[in-house]
Structures are given as structure tokens and as C-alpha cells.
């Protein structure tokens, strides 16, 4: 199944990419997507073990399920306000 991964700020700089479409065996979890991402994108190896994540624009956990067509975002430490 295709999953779109979005990278922001420092993570985007590290990976050199901001949007990555990954083909994945369904069903998957956030953790599995993260593992595949680190294999597929060299710069992504520098991402932390447990980054802040969102699935379809809602905060999620590494154990959260990821479904066909979901948008998974990897969020560096927030620094708003």
C-alpha cells in the first residue's frame, strides 16, 4: 500500500527530502513505516528512534496503525509560540 511521509524542519534538512511516498506491506504501524523510511532514504538514518509523529494530521504513537493512503508526518521537537 502507498503511504505518504512528510518531513519537516530539521528532519527535512537531514533527509534532504520533504515528501516521500513509500510502498509498504499492509497492515503497518508508524514504527514499521519509520523503519522502512530509514532503509529507503539515506539521510533519514539520522532521525531519532522515537520521533513525534502524526497520522492524517493528528498526533499518533509509534504503535498507531497506518492504512492505505494515510499521510504520516515526522515532527521535530515543536517550537511554536
Amino acid at each position, binding site marked *: 500500500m502507498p503511504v505518504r511521509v*512528510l518531513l519537516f524542519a530539521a528532519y527535512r534538512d537531514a533527509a534532504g527530502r520533504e515528501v516521500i511516498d513509500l510502498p509498504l506491506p499492509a497492515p503497518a504501524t508508524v514504527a514499521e513505516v519509520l523503519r522502512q523510511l530509514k532503509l529507503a532514504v539515506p539521510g533519514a538514518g539520522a532521525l531519532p528512534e522515537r520521533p513525534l509523529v502524526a497520522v492524517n494530521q493528528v*498526533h499518533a504513537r509509534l504503535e498507531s496503525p497506518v492504512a492505505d493512503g494515510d499521510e504520516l*508526518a515526522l*515532527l*521535530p*521537537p*515543536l517550537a*511554536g*509560540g
Partner: protein
Amino acid sequence: MSWPCCRRSRGVDVGHLTDAAIALGPLLEEAARPDRGGVTTFLGLVRNHQDGRTVLRLEYSAYLPMAEAETDRIIAEAAARWPARVVVRHRVGALVIGDIAVAVVAAAAHRAEAFEACRYVIEELKRRVPVWKKEFYADGTIEWVDPTARPARVERT
């Protein structure tokens, strides 16, 4: 990726995030009403220092659609807990020292509610809304700010 900045889904409303300078007057107008006598406002201004280093300017970026949605959720939570109207604006793009980076206005009939709703929203906003800050220092270096890597005292800024 780029999303149109910024949401215009609520009539003439520009959404919670904006790439234009934040003016407090219109936000007060938006939040206040003749029966809401207590108005608490928090402004986060761009400071000229961070961890002892001189900051010249900065850039905020955001995961815009999620930032809008998460801010909506926070405001709804506040509205469920306190009879208060809360208005939020957060800048994205390039800012200079003294600029308003974020404004939270909470208007209620009683001041306790206005204070509590305002405080709740700014705390949750900083904890949950996907916005990032790149600081440009006087020594020529540039850094993505990581509040989690700072001493606790500074982390609360």
C-alpha cells in the same frame, strides 16, 4: 510541500496561522463582546537572545493543515472547559526582534476564566501545534530551535 498560507475556510477569517504581521486590535474585537468583561491576552514576542546568544531574526515554519486543525482542537477544548471565547494567531515566515510571534486572546464574563483559558491555550499550543523555529544568530550560525534540548527553565519560555 507547500500549502496555501493560510486557511480561509471561516468566511473572511485567515485561520490561526498567518504570514502577515499580527495586530492585536482586530483580535480583541474578534474575541470581545459586551457581556465578556474580562479579556486576558498572551503575546509571544521575538526576543533578541536565546540561551545567551544574540538572535537577529527568525523563521517560523509549520505543518499548516495540522497546525490549523490542532489549534481548532485546543480552542474547542478550552471552550468546553471555560465559558470563554479564544482567538489565536501564530506567525509563519520571517520575523524580526519585537514581532508578535503568537497572540492568544481569551474573553469571558469573569477574569478567572479568561486567565485560565488563555493559559491553557498557549501551553497546549506550544506542546501540540506543529510549528518550528529557525533562529539566525549574530555569530552567523543558524539553528532549528529544539526546546526539548534546553534546560527546563528555558524550555518554559
